[in-house]
C-alpha cells in the first residue's frame, strides 16, 4: 500500500522528534504564549540540566558540564543584574512621569524647542542644586532668549517676555512649578504653567519646550535598551507573580497533549487515542491477563494504551500473547482493533530500528 505523504512526514517526525525534544518545543511555545511562565519553565530546564550533569559527573568523573552550568548561572545572574539595574532606573523615571514621585533632575541648563505661531519657541531651563527637594535639585529659572526666535515684537514676543518675567529666579511661580513637579505628574505640572491670553499657540509651544527640556534634564534614559528587553523577555514576570493555576493547567496540558500525540503520529495507532479504558476487550479476549516482568497487564487494553503512549517495546512484548482471534475488535464499542494497533506499533518500531542501523552504518563509513 502506498503511504500517503503526510503519513510519511508524520512518522519521520515521530521517529526524529523524541519526547524530550517535543516537550522542549512545547515549553518554548507555551513560554511565547504565557509570559508569566517563562521564568519558571527556564528554571525547570536549568534544574533538569543540572541534575543530568551531576549524574554524568558521578558516572564519568568529569565535571565540565556542571562547571559550565555554574558558569552559565553566574553569567546570567550578572546579565540579569545589569538588566535589572537599568529596569529599576527606567521604572523610577516612568513612575516620575506617571505618578507623584519627584523627578531626578541633573543640574545645568537645558534647552529645547517647540513650534510656536510663527516659528520655533526656544526655551532654556536652568536647574540648580538647592537641597530643598527630595532629590536635591530644582528648577531655578526658565528663560526664552528673544534673540533665538522670531516672535519678536508680535503678540507672541510679548507673551514670551511676560513668561520670562514670571519664571525668573525666586518668583512665586517658579516655587509653585517646583512644588507641582514634586507632588504631581509631569503633564499636570506643565498644565499649571500660565497661558497668556491672546497667545495660545505661543504659550502651548512654551509649555511643550519646557517639558522637553525637563525630560532632557532627567537623570535616566527614557526607554529600556534592547538588551534589557531581551533579558526581560524571559524574566519579566518572576515567580511571585505567576498565577499558580495557569501553571498547573499548562503543566497538565503539556503532559496530556504530548502523550496523546504519539499515537496520532504513527500510522495505524491513531485509533488508540479514543480508547476509553472500558475493558470490554479484556472481557472478550481469551488471554485477559498477562504477567510480564513482574507486572500485571489487562490484555489487550494495556497493549492499546502502550501504543498510545508510544511504548512500542512493550507493545511488541505484549503482542506475543495475542492469538489473533479478533474477538476484542468485535466487542470494542468504538471498534479499536487491538491486534492491528499492535502490529502498526511493531512495524513502526522495526522501521525505526532499521533506520538507526542504517544511520549507524553510514556514520561508520564517514568516520
Amino acid at each position, binding site marked *: 500500500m502506498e503511504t500517503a505523504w503526510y503519513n510519511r512526514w508524520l512518522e519521520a517526525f515521530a521517529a526524529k522528534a523524541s519526547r524530550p525534544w517535543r516537550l522542549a518545543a512545547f515549553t518554548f511555545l507555551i513560554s511565547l504564549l504565557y509570559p508569566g511562565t517563562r521564568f519558571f519553565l527556564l528554571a525547570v530546564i536549568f534544574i533538569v540540566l543540572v541534575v543530568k550533569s551531576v549524574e554524568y559527573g558521578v558516572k564519568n568523573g568529569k565535571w565540565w558540564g556542571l562547571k559550565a552550568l555554574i558558569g552559565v548561572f553566574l553569567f546570567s545572574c550578572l546579565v540579569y543584574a545589569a538588566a535589572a539595574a537599568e529596569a529599576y532606573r527606567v521604572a523610577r523615571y516612568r513612575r516620575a512621569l506617571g505618578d507623584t514621585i519627584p523627578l531626578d533632575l541633573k543640574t545645568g541648563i537645558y534647552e529645547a524647542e517647540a513650534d510656536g505661531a510663527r516659528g520655533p519657541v526656544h526655551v532654556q531651563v536652568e536647574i540648580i542644586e538647592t537641597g530643598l527637594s527630595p532629590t536635591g535639585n530644582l528648577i531655578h529659572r526658565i528663560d526664552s532668549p528673544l534673540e533665538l526666535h522670531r516672535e519678536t515684537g508680535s503678540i507672541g514676543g510679548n507673551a514670551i517676555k511676560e513668561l520670562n518675567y514670571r519664571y525668573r529666579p525666586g518668583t512665586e511661580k517658579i516655587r509653585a512649578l517646583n512644588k507641582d513637579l514634586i507632588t504631581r505628574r509631569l503633564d499636570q505640572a506643565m498644565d499649571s504653567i500660565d497661558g497668556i491670553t491672546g497667545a495660545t499657540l505661543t504659550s502651548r509651544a512654551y509649555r511643550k519646550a519646557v517639558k522637553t527640556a525637563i525630560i532632557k534634564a532627567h537623570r535616566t534614559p527614557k526607554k529600556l535598551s534592547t538588551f534589557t528587553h531581551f533579558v526581560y523577555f524571559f524574566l519579566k514576570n518572576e515567580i511571585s507573580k505567576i498565577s499558580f493555576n495557569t501553571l498547573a493547567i499548562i503543566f497538565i496540558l503539556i503532559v496530556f497533549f504530548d502523550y496523546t500525540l504519539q499515537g496520532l503520529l504513527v500510522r495505524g495507532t491513531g485509533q488508540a487515542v*479514543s480508547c476509553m479504558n472500558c475493558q470490554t476487550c479484556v472481557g472478550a479476549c481469551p488471554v485477559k491477563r498477562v504477567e510480564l516482568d513482574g507486572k500485571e497487564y489487562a490484555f489487550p487494553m494495556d497493549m492499546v494504551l502502550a501504543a498510545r*503512549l508510544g511504548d512500542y517495546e512493550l507493545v511488541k512484548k505484549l503482542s506475543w500473547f495475542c492469538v489473533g482471534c479478533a474477538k476484542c475488535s468485535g466487542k470494542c*464499542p468504538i471498534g479499536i482493533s487491538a491486534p492491528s494497533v499492535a502490529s502498526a506499533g511493531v512495524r513502526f518500531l522495526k522501521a525505526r530500528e532499521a533506520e538507526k542501523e542504517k544511520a549507524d552504518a553510514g556514520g561508520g563509513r564517514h568516520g
Partner: protein
Amino acid sequence: MEILGTITLLIFIVTLVATLLGWIKMPVQTVLIGITLVNIVLALIFFGLQGMADELRLVPADVIGRIILHPVTALLGGLFMGGVLGAAGGFEAIKAIVNRLRKTPLGLAGTLVILINIPLITMLPCGRIIAAALLPLLFMFGPEGSGTLRKTQLIVFIAAFARNSFGSCGPSPVGGVAQIAEGTLGGATFPDAAAGILRGPQVFSLMIGTAFMALFIRFVTKRLYPEDTVQIKDREGGVEPEIKVNWKGYTSLIIFALALLTATFISFIPSLKFITVQAIFVAASILIIIVCRVSLGDLMTGIILMPATAMVAGFLAAGSLYPTGGMQVLQSIFKGLAAFPLLGVVGTLVILVQAQTILPLSCSRILTAVFVPLIYVFGKGVGLTDLQIGIVMAAYIINATTSCAPSPLGGAGMMAEGQLRAETGYLKGAFSFTSLAVMAPLAAVFMRFITLDVFARNPQTGQMMFTATWGHLGQTILWSLVIMAAAYGLIVVMSRLITASLGRNRKVLIASFGLGGVLCGISLALALRLGEPVAGTSLGVSLVQGIIGGIIAAVLIALMIQVSFAGPPLKENVQAVEG
C-alpha cells in the same frame, strides 16, 4: 434563525441517537466534533446568505466560549492525580488497608460494604480511575481468587461497586460533573452555593442507590442461578489475595488524602482563595512524583483520557447549538411539551430529569453541557422558584452522573460487565433502574428538606440561614423510607416474573420500569410541590402530570437498553477453577 436552529438541533439529536444505536461506529467525541463543524459551517452559510454580518462574526467566539475552563482543567488535574496514585501504588495501599479491616470487628461483611463504597470516599473525578484499579482486587474475593464469595455474591458485589464508582464523579470536588450545575445555580440563584450545593443529595442518593443496585442484581441473579448455593471452595482452603505494598503506596495515599482535605477546606481561608483545586492536585501529584520516584511513562498509562475529551467535545457541540439558535428551538420544544395539559410543567421536568438516562452516552459530561443551561432557562421560563430549580437540578445531576454506567458506547458499566465476562447489557437494566426509580427521587427529597434549607437566603436580611427542623429531618427519613420500600417492592415483584425467555423479560422490564417512572414522577412532583405550587397547578394535577412524565421517560429508557438477562457463565468458571 428558526429554520437554522431546527436543522442544527436535528443534526445534533439524530446523530447522537444514531451513535447510541450503533449505526455510526465512531467515538462519541469524534461524532460530536463532527456535529460542531457541520453546525458551524451551516451557520456560516446561513448567515452569509442572509447577510447577517454581526451574527457571522459571533459564531466562532460563541462556540469556543461555551467551553467552561474550570471543570475541564479541574478534571484534568484529578485525572492526573489518579494516574500518579496508580503509578505510585496508592491503590495497592487501599487494597492492603481494606484487607486489614477484615480482622477488625468490622469483619468480612463490614469490609465488603466499605470496599463497595471506596469510590464515594475517594471522590476521584471519574469512576473509571478507581474501578480500573480496584476491580481486579474485587475478583480476588471470588471463586477464582480466595473463594470467599460465591459467584452470585461476586456478581452482586461487582455490580454494587460499579454503581458506586460510576456515580462518584458527581460529587467530586475535583472536576466533578455536578460542578457544572453548581456553577449555574451558584452564579445566579444561590450566590454562596457553588462550593457544593449538590454534593449532599448526590452522596445521599448514591449510598442508597448502591444498596439498591445490589438488591436488584441479587434478586435477578438468584432467579437465574438458583443452583449456585454452595461455596466453590472452603474459605480456609482458598488462596488469600496477597498484596504487596511498599512505603511509596502509603506515602502517595497520605499525600492524596491531605490534598483532598486541603481542597475541601481551603475555601474557608479567604487569603488562600487564589489557590484552586487544580493547583493543589498538581502540586500534590508532583510531590508524589518526586518523593516516590514515579516515571512519567508509568503515570501516563494510568491516565484515562476519555472523560476530558468527552467534556470538551460536549461543550463544543453544545456551543454550536447556541449561535445557531438550536438551543432556543430545544427550549421551545420543551415549552410546547409543558403546554400540553396531560404532561404539564411537572411531567416535562420529570422527562428532563431523566434525559441523560434516556440517552446514555459514554460520559455524562457531554450532555450536561446542553441540559444544565436548558433546565435552568426552562425552569425560569415556566415560573419555577429558585428552590424548585435547585430540586430539579439535584435530581437531574444524579441521573446524569450515573448515566455513563448503562451506556452501550463504552460506558463505564461495560467495565464491570467485561470483567464479569457477562453479555453486554447484563447490568444495564439495574443501572438504569436505580437511576430512575431510586436515586433521582431521593436526591430531590434530600435537596428539598436538608440542603436547600442550609442554602436558603433570608429574604429580609439577605443572610444565609439554616431553617431545617427536626420535622424536616423526620420528613426526609419518612419519604426516603417510602421511596425505598416502593422500589424494593418493585424489584421483588419484577424478579419473581422474569424467566429465561427474553421476550417476556423485556415486557416485564418495560412494565417495571414504567412503575419506577411512576415512583419517580410522584416523588418529584411532591418534592417540588412542598415548596410552592408548581406553575399554578393543583396538587392532584401535578401528581398526574408527574406520573405521566415518569411513565414516558421510563418507557423511553427501557426501550433504549438492550437488556439481556444472560448473565456471566457460571459453569465454565467452576470448571476452570476445578481444572
